[in-house]
């Protein structure tokens, strides 16, 4: 597809996001929600769907849904209604899922997205992505196919009845990157509120994407719903693939068929799952077991007052008050643990918060990735890391020494903070004594007569070579700025 052909088509994308709520118990019964228990040990008559068992709504689930709604600017419905969504599947014991249909708990919110602009430090694009609704519902159990024989599926109902919110976005997004930015922002908000643990691999946060393409100014195209998107990468890949597929069909004079498609990360494509004709007929109707959910406006105001500082405001403050770059601010706010590590370093005495933030995002994370340590150790060692950052930044450690300290510290057996202290002591001091450095430079240059000649006759790119040779003699511990200055004087 050529660029001009692609430019004729505009993608239109809306996301439906399911988030598991961080409650202790299920939405309609008192069974625990904890992950990883032996199968079918967190069950009771309600979540097993036994006849006569009645659901009783969890107050905490309602509060988390309302907090989320408030955080994204929704109106909280003073009265909302639970409905039965009817379908048969072995991991849904009642034969229906309790959800909300016409009257959800939250309506009409939005996310304002900052999208990367021309340079990383000036986000120039803004996207106002509207949220249509947020509703409460129960999760299904888990089916394991082929367990207990090829013709058998095994069912674990521990997850059945886990509280979920579904956040339904309007089709306001225009590219795979915008969809990723939307999901990242939503995830950051959910984490910041403590509403959801945000773990996409374990399925605590799931996403379906509705994708269509049209020519700007013309009616919207036929959409496809893409399921099985379990990471930011698969969201980006799946949408990019689906846009290409639809544009390809239309350019060939064919039509897009409305259907549900499954993303396969291994095969790198979306595959038809069911067409509109085969679509489920869920026959929603109000659940007679559950009266309307009435939420007192006073209670809503109390929850509003309890909202923490949200990611957008936090990013703005990191930039305005502490000079943190836009990129580092976005990175810090993505995960609460990153922000905690940053703050621990600042409290531990980091001399320049902006430099510390960048150091944390780049050098510290690179060292962590090479090691087998968990991020939590970075937080407990934040004071040591901030000290190392300051020492390096002010010339007390050369690049080579910094690298040695981090590599040795992260590789050590002791707790990270102790291993870093040991490594920092072991690496010794940078050589910045002018007389000693001058002696070394003179000694090195004396042995490189021909190269010095070439340099003086115009091959100035040799300068880096001289720096490298001097540093080699100093075992990488020379003060880089001082070495540069002396070399310039000597070669000048």
């Amino acid at each position, binding site marked *: 597809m050529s660029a001009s052909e692609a430019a004729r088509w505009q993608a239109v994308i809306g996301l439906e996001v399911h988030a598991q709520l961080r409650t202790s118990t299920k939405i309609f*019964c008192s069974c625990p929600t904890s992950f990883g228990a032996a*199968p*079918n040990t967190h*069950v009771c008559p309600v979540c097993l769907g036994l006849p006569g068992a009645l659901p009783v709504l*969890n*107050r905490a689930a309602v509060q988390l849904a309302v907090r989320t709604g408030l955080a994204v600017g929704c109106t909280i419905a003073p009265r909302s209604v639970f409905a039965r969504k009817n379908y048969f599947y*072995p991991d849904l014991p009642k034969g229906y899922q309790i959800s909300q249909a016409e009257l959800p708990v939250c309506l009409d919110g939005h996310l304002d997205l900052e999208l990367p602009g021309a340079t990383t430090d000036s986000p120039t694009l803004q996207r106002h992505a509207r949220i249509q609704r947020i509703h409460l519902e129960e999760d299904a159990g888990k*089916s394991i196919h082929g367990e207990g024989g090829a013709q*058998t599926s095994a069912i674990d109902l521990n997850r059945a009845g886990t509280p979920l919110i579904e956040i339904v976005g309007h089709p306001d997004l225009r590219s795979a990157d915008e969809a990723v930015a939307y999901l990242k922002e939503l995830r950051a908000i959910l984490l910041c509120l403590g509403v959801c643990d945000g773990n996409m691999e374990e399925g605590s946060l799931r996403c379906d994407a509705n994708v269509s393409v049209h020519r700007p100014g013309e009616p919207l195209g036929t959409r496809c719903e893409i399921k099985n998107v379990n990471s930011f990468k698969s969201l980006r890949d799946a949408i990019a693939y689906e846009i290409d597929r639809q544009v390809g069909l239309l350019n060939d004079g064919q039509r897009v068929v409305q259907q549900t498609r499954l993303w396969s990360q291994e095969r790198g494509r979306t595959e038809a799952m069911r067409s509109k004709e085969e679509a489920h007929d869920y026959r929603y109707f109000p659940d007679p077991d559950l009266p309307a959910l009435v939420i007192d406006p006073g209670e809503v105001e109390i929850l509003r007052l309890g909202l923490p500082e949200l990611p957008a405001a936090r990013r703005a403050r990191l930039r305005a008050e502490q000079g943190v770059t836009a990129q580092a601010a976005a990175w810090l706010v993505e995960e609460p643990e990153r922000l905690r590590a940053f703050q621990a370093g600042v409290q531990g005495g980091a001399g320049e918060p902006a430099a510390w933030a960048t150091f944390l995002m780049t050098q510290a994370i690179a060292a962590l990735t090479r090691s087998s340590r968990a991020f939590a150790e970075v937080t407990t060692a934040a004071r040591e890391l901030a000290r190392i950052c300051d020492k390096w930044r002010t010339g007390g450690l050369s690049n080579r020494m910094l690298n040695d300290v981090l590599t040795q510290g992260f590789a050590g057996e002791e707790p990270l903070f102790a291993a870093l202290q040991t490594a920092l002591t072991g690496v010794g001091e940078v050589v910045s004594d002018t007389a000693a450095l001058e002696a070394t430079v003179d000694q090195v240059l004396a042995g490189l007569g021909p190269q010095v000649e070439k340099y003086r006759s115009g091959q100035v790119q040799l300068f880096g070579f001289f720096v490298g040779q001097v540093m080699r003699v100093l075992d990488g511990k020379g003060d880089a700025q001082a070495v540069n200055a002396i070399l310039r004087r000597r070669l000048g």
Partner: protein
Amino acid sequence: MTQTDPRLAAPLEHGALDADVVRRTAQLARLALQPDEAHRYQADLGRILGYFQDLQDLDTTGVPPMVHPTDAAMPLREDEVRPGVDPQTILGQAPRAETGLFLVPRVVG
């Protein structure tokens, strides 16, 4: 979202329901109907829909939809774990179970 089959919205003049609608309804309820049963349900369901048609004819302008027979507000439960049931009791009542899991005929994901 709820979608009303246009054929359901207007029952047949003769009071019988379209045979396809009966088949589709039975399929949604996972019922295997014998031919004579299907015929009987055409008449029975048609009559039931007729009663609803009577209700549809009433003017309900300005009357908010009733979602529950009482005006009671939803009682809420505190988020505290309570013991459930012994898994063995439950699994013991299932037609098939193994290593703590219910076993069912394979469903394609």
